[in-house]
């Protein structure tokens, strides 16, 4: 099934530079574009693009099999070079998010493999990987208890929050935070942060920004 959904998050996002606040870059998603994997998806956020393929539920090596649920494996390939430590830590974050959402108990002693290939990186890479993984899992028909989405926020030195930052905004920011939210109760599935920020930053504007982002356009 070829679905090419282009959802405009905010009209302001396209006309010139974004105003700070809850506006996203133009994002797009295409499913079922690869013939070999059981499910595949390509997710675009601005200029950041990630291609995801899902194989499963498939055979698993006896050393890796779990007797009562599916073994979930995530492989993240960078655009150039061999995968390194940064890719390994991102793989672990994506795997923890997927494990919380996929109903692995329905397919014990099988393996579900998610392979992600970074096509271009222009900021918010981890969030784009999470979104591509979710779309690919849905395309493969893997049973899930909810959908999930990823969002990256950058906190600059003035305390302003920018959602879906570009590479330049990420470099200049004081802190970069990435969150994964589920679709049923908008609960936090995963969070990873880098940089300096204090608990004194009022949490409610951050949560409000995340909810407004979600309502603006994130859906299947």
């Amino acid at each position, binding site marked *: 099934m070829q679905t090419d959904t282009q959802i405009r998050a905010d009209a302001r996002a396209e006309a010139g530079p974004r105003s700070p606040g809850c506006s996203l870059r133009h994002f797009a998603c295409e499913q079922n574009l690869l013939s070999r994997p059981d*499910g595949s998806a390509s997710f675009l956020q601005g200029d950041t693009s990630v291609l995801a393929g899902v194989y499963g*539920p498939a*055979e698993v090596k006896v050393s890796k099999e779990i007797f009562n649920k599916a073994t979930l494996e995530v492989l993240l390939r960078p655009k150039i070079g061999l995968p390194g430590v940064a890719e390994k830590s991102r793989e672990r974050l994506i795997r923890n998010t997927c494990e919380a959402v996929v109903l692995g108990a329905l*397919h014990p002693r099988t393996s579900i493999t998610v392979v992600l290939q970074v096509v271009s990186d222009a900021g918010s890479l981890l969030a784009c990987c999470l979104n591509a993984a979710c779309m690919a899992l849905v*395309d*493969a028909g893997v049973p899930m208890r*909810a*959908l999930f989405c990823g969002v990256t926020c950058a906190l600059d030195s003035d305390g302003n929050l920018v959602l879906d930052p570009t590479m330049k905004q990420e470099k200049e920011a004081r802190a970069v935070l990435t969150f994964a939210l589920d679709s049923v109760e908008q609960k936090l599935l995963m969070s990873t942060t880098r940089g300096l920020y204090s608990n004194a930053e009022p949490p409610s504007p951050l949560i409000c920004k995340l909810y407004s982002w979600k309502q603006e356009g994130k*859906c299947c």
Partner: protein
Amino acid sequence: MAEAAAVGAESLASGQARAARAVLGQLVLPGEELLLPEHEDAEGPGGAGERPLRLSPAPRSRVRVVCGPGLRRCGERLLVTKCGRLRHKEPGGGGGGVYWVDSQQKRYVPVKGDHVIGIVTAKSGDTFKVDVGGSEPASLSYLAFEGATKRNRPNVQVGDLIYGQFVVANKDMEPEMVCIDSCGRANGMGVIGQDGLLFKVTLGLIRKLLAPDCEIIQEVGKLYPLEIVFGMNGRIWVKARTIQQTLILANIFEACEHMTPEQRRQIFSRLAES
């Protein structure tokens, strides 16, 4: 598709369960909860749990609803686990019918009673190991063929195609298949003959082709004489008089999923002329 997805997202965002009857034929997303008909009144939009007045004191009869692929029971509601369109089939007699989600998939998961095409990969002792496209190979006993006894073994080699059905297929056990029905007759099952071509399509296309009165099958039958076997695991074996005709038929089946009926008729008329 975008509008249907937007509606689905709204229901997810609002967090309210929708009635299953109201959503029939529409797109549902994983995580949505659906109310069964008998529970709709109790959980109305007001949420006050008011029940309508009933004159007879008899308790409301519980209707047994079957939960099909893509749905799981979650308390008294149905939880959607796959993305697709919600379908419902009225019951023949009694019961509450079946609800299921029509989703598109390429990977097969063994289900008891399904007829599948498998490839023999190994012979170990008294059983064959057959690859059916699932997560593990199915086992097929050599006695599970028509007229097979300990002395009269079936002539099955590694690499042969087998058409059989599952007798044991659940998530906890290795799937087992047989090539006889419950009366002991082959009924079309067994080793598939020489030549022909085996190819793979999506599971949704197989279900569409096996539906009663499928137009595609009737049109293909008028085109060339052919032998065809459909496996519920997405595999089709087809054999026509010449190799060229076989390849044309294979291409037609692989492409017909994405063609509109008019495009299909154009192709068939062009092939019938040549």
